[in-house]
């Protein structure tokens, strides 16, 4: 008895799932078995605060991610192009945001960091794309990502942009 009730419930859920997709597809789908349609109604992908509302970032990969020599060269580039004077030694943060606190306003994956350096960002990050080589940018990406400690310990963290700027 319980099993039948359970099966009915699953079919109902499956039916709803099927119906939801049918609404999207705009046509009647054939009845499917519980086994392959037992799933929750899907939501849209999470859109992170601060990122433009578009699909996923470009699927670039960093050719030198984690490469020790690249990171060391990246550290020297970080100084040569004055990054250190805005972002602080070791990326500890000064005029510009910290790279050590594990919080990334525009995303911390390699392609996202690449884009931030390449395109610049609204609150004063210069656009380096086209001014320095992409090889150098990738080395900076490797270096900057290597600085992140990954843990967040600030007591007054209220949100990404708000916390730093209050507006």
């Amino acid at each position, binding site marked *: 008895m319980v099993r039948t009730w359970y099966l009915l419930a699953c079919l109902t859920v499956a039916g709803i799932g099927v119906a939801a997709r049918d609404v999207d597809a705009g046509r009647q789908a054939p009845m499917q078995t519980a086994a392959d349609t037992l799933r929750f109604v899907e939501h849209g992908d999470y859109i992170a605060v601060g990122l433009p509302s578009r699909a996923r970032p470009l699927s670039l990969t960093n050719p030198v991610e984690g490469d020790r020599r690249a990171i060391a060269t990246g550290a020297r580039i970080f*100084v*040569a*192009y*004055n990054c*250190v*004077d*805005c972002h*602080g*030694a*070791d990326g*500890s*943060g*000064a*005029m*510009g945001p*910290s790279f*050590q*606190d594990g919080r990334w306003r525009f995303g911390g994956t390699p392609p996202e960091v690449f884009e931030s350096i390449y395109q610049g*960002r*609204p*609150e*004063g*990050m*210069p656009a380096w794309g086209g001014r320095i080589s992409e090889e150098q940018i990738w080395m900076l990406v490797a270096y900057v990502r290597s600085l992140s*400690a990954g843990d967040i*310990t*600030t*007591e*007054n963290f209220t949100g990404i942009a708000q916390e*730093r*700027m*209050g*507006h």
Partner: protein
Amino acid sequence: MTVAHRGAASLVMLAAALACRGDGGRQGAIDSVGGPAVTVRGARIAAPRSGPAGEWEMPAGDYANSRYSELNEITAENAHNLKVSWAFSTGTLRGHEGQPLVIDSTMYVVTPYPNVAYAFDLSQEGQPLKWKFRPANSQAAIGQACCDVVNRGAAFADGKLFYNLLEGSTVAVDVRDGKQVWRTRVASLDRGETITMAPIVVKNLVLVGNSGGELGVRGWIAALDTRTGKEVWRAYSAGPDRDVKVGPRFKPFYAHDRGKDLGVTTWPADAWKTGAGAVWGWLSYDPELNLVYHGTSNPGPWNAEQRPGDNKWTCAILARDADTGELVWAFQVTPHDMWDYDAVNENILVDLPIGGTTRKVLVHFDRNGFAYVLDRATGEALMAHPYVPMNWSTGVDLTTGRPKVVPEKATAQGKKITNICPSLEGGKNQQPAAFSPKTGLFYVPTINLCMDFEARPATYIAGTPYIGASAPEYAGPDGYRGEFMAFDVTTGRKAWGIREPYPVWGGALVTAGDVAFYGTLDGWFKAVDARTGKLLWRFKLGSGVVGNPITYLGPDGTQYVAIYSGLGGDMGVLIAGDVSANVPHDVRVRGTTLPDIGRWTSWGGVLFVFSL
């Protein structure tokens, strides 16, 4: 002292400082109250205040920059009764430097970026806003401001409020309705220029200057017509005579300051074009001499080896004709600066008894640790006593006006010079001092930090920092980091001082009631006896103080004292985030500079007003 010794000494000092703390942490802070009250007789503020005593109509209270008020309802005897009257959250965080204005029963407040202006109707209960002005203000400026997105206040004249936007524009706002009258772009963000300073209005001109000493800008001061915002004149701090406005009126007191195109010849080729000398500090004005006095920032880059020569006119005090900007005299406080000792601190115009006669002088507590007394008509240096512990110079040679540099403290490329005092933040920074004609003393919020300094080659990339140095800072001798003091410049002696655990980054106010007010980085707002330094009253504000107190008469005839709370500024940028840097290659190191500050305050932005 070797690094190891200093490290051990710092630990001992820290232990001592911690041991000295009583309950609540701050009651036991090291106080040093001097002996009998010192009074310097015959001292007076240079020019009488133009408006009613109950108003605060320009940033420093008056053209002389005295930050003194005749109001005396609040006295040393009754100040312990002060209580909060009202408060207002500005809706912004970050460093709330500067101060409100109070004119005609209206209070005007300008916030840090985005530089909102508020007008409060003081005649109504609850002080409702008359209007609020939120200008368009480029976000890109945020990343070009070296030392937080601060604003040091507005000026007022002809029914208009004038103030600067971080992005490099000056605005004029009609105080009747909060509508913009004009807006002029005066600085170039592309070249790393921003604006944080408080303008003053002289006759029909608004005087403004740029920031960007750390971004290799060209420093300048400009005058805009108050009615239209049109630029009437602009004078540069370096470059050919024509740009610096050196002409027939220029009469520098010292021989080494005379010559053609010194703004070029005291630099290697073209270095003056990225040589800074930014004009980001306070302006004062002598109506009798018609002279505007202002300081100029450090030269760029910090690495002095890239710019041999005196680097005129950086780190200098300049006297300019208010109508034309012509340079009348110049005094270079720190020629060929090697320590980032900007000379932008306020020049307080007073008449002081010196050597038996009354001299018309300006008094300037410089970053470099000396309290200069200059003849304000000629630029002659009359006195220069140290006012904080210092070791980079053995003194100022008054026959030449030049400091005698200790060779071991001269900074250099690839060499780490240790224990230079004061640090690059100086004996005093943007926080302004006050002067009381009743006591003849100056009330000076000071810093006791020292630094290591290692220079390296810097690349100029427009709009990015042009520095070329690492300079971690730490507590100076005795381990305290700040002191609020009463200083007698005629003798070069401190009358009394109140040591603070952190640099005193907020400005001073002193009144005829013999009360001096100041705020601390850890959030205390204090009233002390102007004669003895005795603590009369204090209140823990919502956030640390980097702004300057004012006092005014409310429509009800009561005396009020107003102060911003809102940690930030140069010091606030230091504590942003909670991670310390481990490598020596850092401009400023956290942790050792402001230890434990996060236990006493976080960011905020609230105006507090007090009364009896």
